[in-house]
């Protein structure tokens, strides 16, 4: 028993060290932005296995992903389109749980310095207990957490707990958010603000045009944090159009679909890495 406790302590120490090295999310955006917007890569953890996700994240980091979002699969992903719904189903079928995803984060942290953001619906976190979740995420070397269905109004206790564990809290801003709401979203966000590019669920294509520009402008009035845009970003032309406007782009469904279509094997790893490189190179 004592031996195990000692081991836990050692892991905690090492992960704290690595997290310090990773310099957190803001730094990642600064680094990433030197050439075009930083690339935030989303994958559903455990799709179709945690082993595959581990390899995939390492390959994407090598290929130039500046931040990786690990999606915690949930049975009822109301904000997600069909691609991530299918990924969540595969991950749950494989027995993926939040503790399993946290262990994956810890393994990744030992092998790569890419900052990790956990992306989850609220219920799995609630059932683990926010305090326990935050402690374990911090020990695993996670940089930040985004809860899809948690708005600033309900987030008080959650934010306080994550702050105590020095975890960044990323909140969503939407095209429908009023200026007042953008202010409270910005106030509670750390690391970066995730701007939803359009109404709707993840995956369906987004037209990068005047609405996003106006939205980014409105959001920038409330925050100096990096702004990353996501939902329906999959093509180099979109990334190029966002170059100079935002600090980062989030690519999710496109990567998940890419792995699905290539069968989640070695070919899938290569295809996903290629997509990351292509999007990373895209700029105006």
């Amino acid at each position, binding site marked *: 028993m004592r031996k195990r406790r000692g081991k836990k302590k050692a892991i905690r120490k090492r992960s704290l060290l690595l997290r310090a090295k990773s310099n957190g999310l803001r730094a990642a955006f600064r680094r990433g932005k030197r050439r075009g917007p930083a690339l935030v890569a989303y994958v559903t953890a455990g799709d179709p296995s945690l082993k595959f996700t581990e390899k995939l994240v390492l390959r994407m980091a090598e290929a130039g992903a500046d931040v990786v979002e690990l999606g915690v699969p949930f049975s*009822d992903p109301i*904000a997600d389109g069909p691609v991530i719904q299918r990924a969540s189903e595969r991950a749950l079928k494989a027995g993926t749980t939040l*503790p399993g995803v946290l262990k994956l984060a810890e393994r990744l942290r030992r092998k790569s310095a890419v900052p990790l953001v956990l992306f989850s619906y609220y*219920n799995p976190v609630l059932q*683990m207990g926010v305090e326990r979740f935050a402690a374990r995420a911090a020990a695993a070397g996670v940089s930040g957490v985004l809860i899809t*269905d948690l*708005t600033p*109004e309900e987030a008080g206790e959650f934010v306080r707990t994550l702050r105590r564990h020095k975890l960044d809290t990323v909140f969503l801003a939407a095209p429908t*958010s009023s200026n007042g709401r953008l202010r409270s979203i910005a106030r509670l966000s750390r690391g970066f603000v995730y701007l939803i590019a359009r109404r709707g669920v993840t995956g369906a294509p987004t037209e990068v045009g005047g609405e996003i520009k106006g939205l980014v402008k409105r959001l920038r009035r409330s925050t100096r944090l990096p702004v990353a845009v996501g939902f329906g970003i999959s093509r180099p032309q979109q990334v190029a159009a966002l170059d100079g406007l935002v600090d980062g782009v989030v690519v999710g469904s496109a990567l998940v679909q890419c792995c699905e279509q290539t069968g989640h094997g070695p070919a899938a790893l290569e295809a996903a890495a290629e997509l990351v490189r292509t999007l990373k190179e895209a700029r105006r």
Partner: protein
Amino acid sequence: MPRAAQQTLPDARGHFGPYGGRFVPETLVAPLEELERAYRRARADRGFAQTLNHLLADFAGRPTPLYFAERLTRYLGGARVYLKREDLLHTGAHKINNCLGQGLLAARLGKRRLIAETGAGQHGVATAAVAAHLGLKCTVYMGEEDMARQRLNVVRIEMLGAEVIPVVSGSRTLKDAINEAMRDWVTNVESSHYLLGSVCGAHPYPMMVRDFQSVIGREARAQILRAEKRLPDLLLACVGGGSNAIGLFREFLGEAAVKMLGVEAGGRGSALGEHAARLGLRSRRNGARPGVLHGTYTYVLQDKHGQISTTHSVSAGLDYPAVGPEHAFLRDAGRVVYTAVGDEEALAAARLLAEQEGIIPALEPAHALAELVKRAPKMRRNQVIIVNLSGRGDKDMDILSRHLPTGMA
């Protein structure tokens, strides 16, 4: 609990004690706020009330009778049994009360399209009827399994000019239909109103749907005072999301002498996945714990990692893993007692009512009737029970016919 305290719930952010609230993706917050403002304005507007009351009377058929079930009372040999006849309403269930209210609101907000989910199909039919009446487009999401077992209602929804979209994800029942309806709404928030059918979901739905359904209890109170010159001793209603139950209970919550019982679906066993009893089953392995589903914090059937469980009930309208947050609050406060009744008992109670009173109930209120069969004989003959007969059984004839005693089918 004091009546005044009850009437101030939920608080400004939609909380009933620890329950309720608004847990949705950011995109949906603005439309929920817009809806809440519109609803609060409408509630204070006499013109809105007049239009709604007119439609409730002439389109839906209110007030519904409070029927003294004399033969059933004699058969059970205990308390006097009254049935609140929501089954006689246009489209066949209490759902129309809420649909008319929300439909009028949607029209005020300038929405051109209604989105709805449906389990048993009654809410889908009622929404489609209101959409036709108001000249709005209508899309109804329905789980594939529910479409098979409530086929008649699918035809009715289509006959009313609405589109039914089969939902093939997850358990293919009500939970998954709500997921799809929310995804549609988040995509079409400008043009569409999400007409949620129960006291579930994010604020303001639990409050607003409750208010629109409270007409049931207001009528019942006046009717029982006329018939019996006294308040009832016990109210009985089935609880899926819980709108018909809240609708009956609300008016009586301040009356300490009136006991209330909510009846959930016990399905075919107490293991997780075999039932839909969020509040009523006291079993360690039944899996009911507070959590967040579909925008609200309430009791939810789930596994230990917070994944939402599938449920089972013979009745599609009760087959849902969460319950309205106000019910969670009323349970913790001890004001309402919740219990569960299994598939077989509900089917037997449906037959009993048909044979004793000439009324075929829907399988949902048949659960409340099954509890009545247990309770009434233990009460005194001068005591009074009101059962909310929330819907009629036409939609369930396929299922009922398979369960008739041999030789009758």
